[in-house]
């Protein structure tokens, strides 16, 4: 059972949840990122995800380590899909179990923020009238020192 994985097949939420189940858990949170049809008035037809697979899995595991240090007692599993994804397809599932709910929410949100900062996965949007690779960080602030925040940090 791989807690952190890049896959090219559909992801089942229940299967990611199953990886974090524990008799110590009182709360399990999931985040599911799905392909949205409309973004700022622009219609997406489909997406294409690419990853640097071995490094992406390593970085997902690093996020898991960070979470276990910050929120002891949590268990994290993350699956991210690559390839062509249609509207409503699942791109990513993050599951976190914890004895108590606050940590399960916080750790889950931390995971998605960190994925968007530092995991080598790229999304190409295909619209009716064009296509483009999206760089989430570029849409926000360029890296202040030419690098992303690789060290664990506070979330934005």
């Amino acid at each position, binding site marked *: 059972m791989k807690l952190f994985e890049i896959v090219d097949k559909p992801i089942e939420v229940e299967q990611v949840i199953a990886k974090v189940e524990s008799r110590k858990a009182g709360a399990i949170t999931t985040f599911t990122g799905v392909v949205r049809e409309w973004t700022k008035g622009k219609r997406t037809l489909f997406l294409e995800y*690419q990853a*640097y697979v071995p490094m*992406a899995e*390593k970085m997902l595991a690093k996020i898991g380590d960070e979470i276990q240090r910050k929120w002891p007692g949590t268990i994290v599993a993350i699956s991210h899909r690559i390839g062509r994804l249609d509207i409503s397809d699942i791109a990513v599932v993050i599951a976190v179990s914890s004895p108590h709910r606050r940590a399960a929410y916080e750790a889950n949100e931390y995971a998605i923020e960190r994925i*968007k900062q530092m995991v*080598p996965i*790229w*999304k190409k949007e295909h619209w009716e009238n064009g296509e483009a690779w999206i760089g989430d960080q*570029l849409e926000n602030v360029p890296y202040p020192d030419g690098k*992303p925040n690789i060290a664990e940090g506070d979330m934005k």
Partner: protein
Amino acid sequence: MIKILLFAQLQEEFGVKDIEINLMETTVSQLKEILKANFKFPSLDHCMVAINEEYAMDFDTVQSGDTVAFIPPVSGG
């Protein structure tokens, strides 16, 4: 021999997924200069760099046998 991996828009701009170049020990920033001098790589300055699957800084050393990946702004999730 240094193996260079390209992704996303870099891969499309360049038309290949990887390049091998013969170089002795160098730094990340020197490697970037060499690539910019020899190839058309408009997006290179916006990229992060990973050496053997770990993020690296401009001053880090690259040596023969290493795999260097240029990582355009990521957009997973």
